[in-house]
């Protein structure tokens, strides 16, 4: 067990090193550097350019730059943003908490809604309406739902809370509920056809209690799917964040890349790759916890 976790942690480290290396190389090979961004259509005099290059390590070969960044990552000094001067660690933590809050809140609202809707459809029999609504929900990408929500608010002359979590949360919930409703409903229906449920039914268990049993049965697969989406939102719901100017990780990545803010870019990739890898491990452990069969295998 401990060896298993240790192995996994080593794997996290490897993931972090590779992703930072890949992202940094891509950013460096992409034409234009922070000095180009800084000067826009104008150009600095050669000696000023040299000065800035030396300060940003751009005068060294890429692998040396990467080694320097790695060294910094693991000593806890993540440097400062080239443009705002804010320490990368504070910046990233603030954005990360915003994204995490959004991801968790979305997961909770989506799951609560899904369970309620699936309960209503499988136990109470409102199947058709919800299936149609689910199709409507999945028919548009999240950002389009965001625009629709925004336009509706504008029409109703209701102030749009830009920068707050409300709008992205509503958008991602609406866009996500359709797909997770479909997943959960299929899982529950499959459970209802399983012999053990038949057995419970035969002993006279109510439909509501049967639903709880089926839900337990469906959880492992559902949780895997939900965690995957949670990871995606933490990494950045780029379009939705941009639309409502919500300061999350997605907007941070886009801005860091387009302004070639390398320290922020590196910080982003280290944070996100380790989160995704840890989430993966967490998913496995959770799986073990809720599915006794896997627990016993290990």
């Amino acid at each position, binding site marked *: 067990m401990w060896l298993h976790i240790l192995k996994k942690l080593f794997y996290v480290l490897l993931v972090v090193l590779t992703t930072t290396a890949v992202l940094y190389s891509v950013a460096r090979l992409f034409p*234009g550097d922070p000095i*180009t961004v800084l000067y826009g*259509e104008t150009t600095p005099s050669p000696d000023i350019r040299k000065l800035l290059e030396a300060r940003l390590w751009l005068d060294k070969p890429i692998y040396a730059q990467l080694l320097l960044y790695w060294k910094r990552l693991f000593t806890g000094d993540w440097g400062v943003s080239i443009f705002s001067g804010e320490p990368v660690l504070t910046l990233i933590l603030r954005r990360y908490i915003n994204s995490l809050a959004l991801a968790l809140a979305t997961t909770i609202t989506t799951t609560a809604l899904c369970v309620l809707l699936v309960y209503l459809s499988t136990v109470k029999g409102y199947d058709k309406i919800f299936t149609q609504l689910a199709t409507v929900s999945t028919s548009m990408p999240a950002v389009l739902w965001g*625009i*629709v929500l925004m336009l509706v608010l*504008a029409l109703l002359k209701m102030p749009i809370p830009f920068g707050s979590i409300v709008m992205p949360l509503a958008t991602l919930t609406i866009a996500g509920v359709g797909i997770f409703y479909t997943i959960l409903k299929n899982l529950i229906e499959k459970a209802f056809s399983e012999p053990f449920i038949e057995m419970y039914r035969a002993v006279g268990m109510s439909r509501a209690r049967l639903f709880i049993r089926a839900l337990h049965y469906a959880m492992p697969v559902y949780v895997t799917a939900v965690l995957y989406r949670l990871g995606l939102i933490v990494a950045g719901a780029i379009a939705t964040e941009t*639309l409502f100017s919500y*300061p999350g990780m997605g907007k941070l990545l886009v801005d860091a890349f387009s*302004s*070639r803010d390398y320290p922020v870019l590196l910080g982003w990739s280290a944070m996100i790759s380790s989160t995704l890898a840890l989430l993966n491990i967490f998913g496995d452990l959770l799986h073990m916890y809720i599915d006794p069969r896997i627990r016993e295998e290990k």
Partner: protein
Amino acid sequence: MNRKFLYLVILIIIAVLASYVSESFLTRRGASITITVPTTSTTVYLLSNPMQNATLRIALSTDISTIDIHYATGVADFEVLGNVYESLFRITYNGSKLAYIPWLVKEFKQLNDTAWLFVLRNGIMFQNGERLTAYDVKASLERSMRLSGIGKQLLTDAKGRPIISDIVIINDTAFIIMLREPFTPLIEHLAHLSTAIMPRDVALKYWNGPINSTQDVIGTGPFMLESYEKGSRAVLKRFDGYWGRKPAIQNLVYLILPDANARISAILSGSVDIATGVSPDMVNTLRAQGIEVYRVTGVRLVLVAINCLRIPDVRVRQALNYAINRSAIVKELMDGYAQVAMGIASPVFPDAAVLEPYNYNVSKARELIEEAGFAGKKLTLLVSTRSPKDVQLAQVVQQYLKAVGVDVEIVQMEHTAFLKRVFIDHDFDLAIYGPSPSSLYYALTYWRTNASLNGPQYSNPEVDVLLDRIAREVNESKRLELYRDVQEVIWRDAPAMWLYFEDVVVAARPSVKGLQILPFQKLVLDSMYIG
């Protein structure tokens, strides 16, 4: 009541809602709505602003790229930081022409050809509580010349030497700017925010690179930068020690909303008071909803740069100019919210020349191309993906050039990569961009040999000589003549397809009073208040 019926009702409601939403926002309304254009010239000057504790929220289409005024390059940079910083002179606009008026300077006098005496106003305070002195001015101007890309362009001559040889301080408030050679556009250039004044210790602290702490964003302007969250918002607070007329509003919040729909929804719903970067096709919708739309002739000249090293034949470059129907582009692409380029500098600049137009003439263009043996050539057209309008324009240009026998391949690029390709590597045939100069002379220096803004690497010794002569010519009418000559030469040499001057379109809620707009898409909040 059966379920099918309920489901049908829900679907119908959604459909109606969707069509209403899309119709009122996404389609253009007919021209039946009467339009009143509030112009910026009709500003009621109040004796004093009603001091309000209100917050003004402004939606911007792009983020600021820096917090250092000397590194400011984009429209948003000057919009936000222009509230914090001020220059020695200031650019004003009366509705038809720009003017350059003393600002931090109380009086100034030209002592001889190369020496100008300036006296600062009394009692100007920086936002850190220190008094503005001539020492701050000296350090700021020197830093601007040293670090600022635009400052360098404004204050260096053709050979790249600084035009200012020294700044001699007489006392706390008086100083003399010593020039290497006479330089007539000096005042205009000291009005640019890239030469803004900051405290001496800040200028020296960041002598070798950009300011990287919001604590050090200190100017003499009416607002202080309180916080800045990249990609999201910048918050400014009124500076109560401001020397000039204090603004009526207490807080200024800039929201960064790159999505055009978001900006429109924001202003319609009252989430913001002012929205910049309004697309012309939304104007009627906004007005129908009671939003005021301001329109000002802009300085941004949208052009297609022609790489002069790759296309050295002037006949071809002129042919490309004849191949374009500018008025059709202005009418169709810009909904009329632009002025067809009649010269290489916006008509808002004093002394901008109106030149003989390149009338749309396909046969003439074909003839010139045949004559130059350029028929059937294939060219690449670079365009930055930052502006959707530019990408549309690229497609229109492609069609026009196809009609005269020039095949164009459009290459879309991310903005920073685009800047590098065009302004550093000069690796392109054609490229779409739009310089926004602050003075006529500055607009012309773009076309000087080896100028950093000279993307197409145009070089004509005659232009360089004329620009030098303008800088030296003290006689105003002679200078005017030279200005006309140099504009004529560049216009005829056609290092670019000159297209149009984009109008600045800003939307504001009716409660916003006394708003003024400069042709640089800069809001002037001096006499603004919430009514």
